[in-house]
């Protein structure tokens, strides 16, 4: 009974807003006919918000340690914690798929980071995604905590949706030792820095804090020109 009531209430509320919305937005199950007007509405809304912007209060940054602890309790598989520097988005990701050495981790909103041996090789659902990467020689150096040179190829879709490689020449150097504890696990790591340069002069630096057993416990990695850097912490390997 209660459910029926809720449904009919929702219906009447919808009916009330329907007429108001209809004139601008369109409705129905055939998106090929309604989408155009919905875009027009979206553009109008974004213009309005730009013109009359009231700064929304910045959401409180959640405590990474608490997020990690909560995730450990609610999810049984491997977990990472990631923060996108460009947007500030901080989120936990649970392992979603595994193919050989490749692990796909997903946010609750079904956006994914794909890691191979701790090195970020792809993203999905973020927009301007990293399609795939080749990390061959540098991955070996980083995991073995050895200095050396190698090639790191990033691939993206260009503005026309054609896949384009961004090859980079990289040098891997070993830095300071660092021991820390996070989410109930302590890690003894050495910082490995991977500095990469493309033919057009773009330079990026990826940092990996690697344990003696070759686990990338913490890293700051470049996703690409559109998304910038992401910091990834291992919560449960």
């Amino acid at each position, binding site marked *: 009974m209660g459910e029926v009531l809720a449904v009919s209430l929702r219906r009447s509320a919808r009916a009330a807003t329907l007429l108001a919305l209809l004139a601008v937005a369109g409705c129905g199950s055939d998106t090929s006919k*309604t*989408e*155009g*007007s919905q875009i027009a509405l979206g553009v109008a809304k974004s213009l309005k918000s730009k013109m009359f912007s009231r700064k929304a209060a910045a959401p409180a940054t959640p405590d990474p340690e608490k997020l990690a602890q909560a995730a450990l309790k609610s999810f049984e598989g491997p977990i990472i914690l990631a923060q996108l520097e460009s947007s500030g988005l901080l989120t936990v990701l649970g392992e979603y798929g595994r193919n050989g050495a490749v692990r*796909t981790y997903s946010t609750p909103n079904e956006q994914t980071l794909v890691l*191979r041996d701790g090195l970020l090789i792809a993203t999905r659902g973020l927009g301007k995604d990293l399609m795939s990467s080749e990390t061959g020689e540098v991955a070996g150096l980083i995991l073995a905590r050895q200095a050396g040179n190698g090639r790191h190829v990033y691939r993206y*879709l260009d*503005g026309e949706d054609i896949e384009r490689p961004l090859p980079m020449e990289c040098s891997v150097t070993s830095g300071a030792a660092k021991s820390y504890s996070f989410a109930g696990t302590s890690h003894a790591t050495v910082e490995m820095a991977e500095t990469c340069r493309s033919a057009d002069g773009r330079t990026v630096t990826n940092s990996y804090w690697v344990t003696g057993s070759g686990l990338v416990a913490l890293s700051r990695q470049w996703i690409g020109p559109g998304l910038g850097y992401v910091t990834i912490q291992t919560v449960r390997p």
Partner: protein
Amino acid sequence: MRGTMITGLGAASGIAIAAVMAYAEPSLDYSAGTFGLPGLIDMPTAESAPEGMINASVFRFEGALRITATFQVTDRLSGAFRYSRVPGIFTNGSALYDRSFDVQYRLLDEAGWRPAVAIGLRDFIGTGIYSGEYIVASKTLTPRLRATAGLGWGRLGSHGDIGSPFGTRPALNFGQGGKANTDQWFRGPAAPFFGLAWAATDKLTLKAEYSSDGYPSETAAGTFSRDSSVNFGAEYRFNKSASLSAYYLYGSEVGLQFNLTLDPRRPPAPSGLETAPLPVRPRPAYAADPGAWATDWTEDPEVRPGIQTALAKALAKDGQVLESMALSATSVEVRIRNQRYLSQPQAVGRTARALTRALPPSVETFVITSMTEGMPASSVTLSRSDIERLESEESAEILRTARFSDPAAVADPGLVPSPGVYPRFVWSLAPYGEASVFDPDDPLRADFGLKLSGKYELRPGLVAAGSIRKKLIGNLDDSTRTSDSTVYHVRSDLVEYQKQGDPGIDNLTLAWYSRPAPNLYGRVTVGLLERMYGGVSGELLWKPVDSRLALGVEVNQVKQRDFDTLFTFRDYEATTGHVSAYYDFGHGFLGQVDVGRYLLGDWGATVTLDREFANGWKVGAYATFTDLSSADFGEGSFDKGVRLTIPVAWTTGKPSVNKVSTTIKPLNRDGGARLEVDGRLYETIRSTHQGDQQVQWGRFWR
């Protein structure tokens, strides 16, 4: 790119880059002249926009209003379409509203001491008010300064000429306009012009020119006085796409111009705002778990329906409809209708990954068949091992293993339809707008209203569809313009339909799509086919899945509808139809030739050329030539127009199969008029065929 890179490098280096930029020498970019194409002010330059760029400009001064759209067709070839108003040009003091086309071709690039050289034709198929030809050279003297000099004929040779090097210019056979004025090109007096453009800053470009345009008609009409040949201009760029130019023209007038540049390769939203695909689930190695690879599941009658239900559910979440499935111990065929992704490979790629999670390990061959309008249009065959192996590799790797084929070539695929897919009903209630922009009496009239549409698919390929519109507000019915066409008004009574068709039925049809044989596609549509015609339309298309060439035949028997666009007809019946050839030239160029009989009974051909980008943008132009005399055709002499298609996903970054299309047709006349029927086969199936899928394959792993 530069802006986003700064965020990636962090604030400190961002400031460093900004500092470098502030001190860096500004370099001179191309900029639009008052005729829209790259130029100084009224004079052209030998510059070109980058390939694929679209520019729209509005220029206004005492002597003219010019609204121009330009497109950089290839690296060297530029085209422009213009709508202009020249006030007071006629003896009775009324203004000339005119449409014109320009082309420019860059013959030589700058190299060493050599300048860039271009040749161009202005207003070469219009009524000729702006007709002129030129050859022009531009040379970059310093990174900030570019000089241009050229020689102009026609209008561009109307002031300060140096004689007629290629003989006299025959008088313009004004006639009905619209024909290429070939006998005039580069004839008559030639006059030199020159000028400079200087990038004062990154945002501000200053220009000066000596104009060889005498504005003969305008000065004769007395609407404008030409006191000097020297013009000055300043262009300020707000950002990469918008700029404003101000001019001091001919010693007497001030002009303003607004420019908007659109780059189809630079979407306003980041692509890929969608949920991530399901990851591939690899199978256990055979040696590790031979039991998992057993095939005895085929004997269990519960397994196949269970898999089909689970798969349909997973695909539905991703905007795909699993229409039917055929499953054996070692292979599967799924027939999917893609309702979400503009790029068919993305739909195929996501389906392939879902299959790795749904099927027993013994199933090694995946056949993913794309359905459009209930027709199986193409199959992609992939091996499951390759999908497992190549998930994190370059998309070209999996493309090398993919095999495209025609599903109609398989005799009995043993498909089991998914329950509940047919019949299927979708509807929509959405606003519509209809504008008339080329009405010389009032250049902008428009109607807005609501349109109710419905589509009912009874079984695969059998579709009933209809839509009704009701105007809410508008002034299209204020138009007093009546068609002056001397032939039967097969199209030119549009104003009557706009006035009386409220409410009106846009279309109400029953269509049947089929695959009569391998490589063949069929369509029969009956009912109220379009706003002005009802009847029967039949089409047959030959298009092998891997062919660049397609051939089609269409025959229609139609009757003209009454102006009230309800169920009654006027007393005009026509048999119209075409034989069509379509060819994909590669590099994004698509050509089409239709030869046949048009609505008026005139015989002729339509030639269409489109430039299609991998992301779905399309810019094209068409022209129709028929045996109707240009006198009978009336103003414009023959039918021509430009068309533009923009994918919705490009503007939002969110996945969508929808596109917004528009055809800009300068005149709506009766000659060379084609029936407009929904669901023509080539465009219906093309995106699923090998050529298009290869172009868009970069999204397979998206």
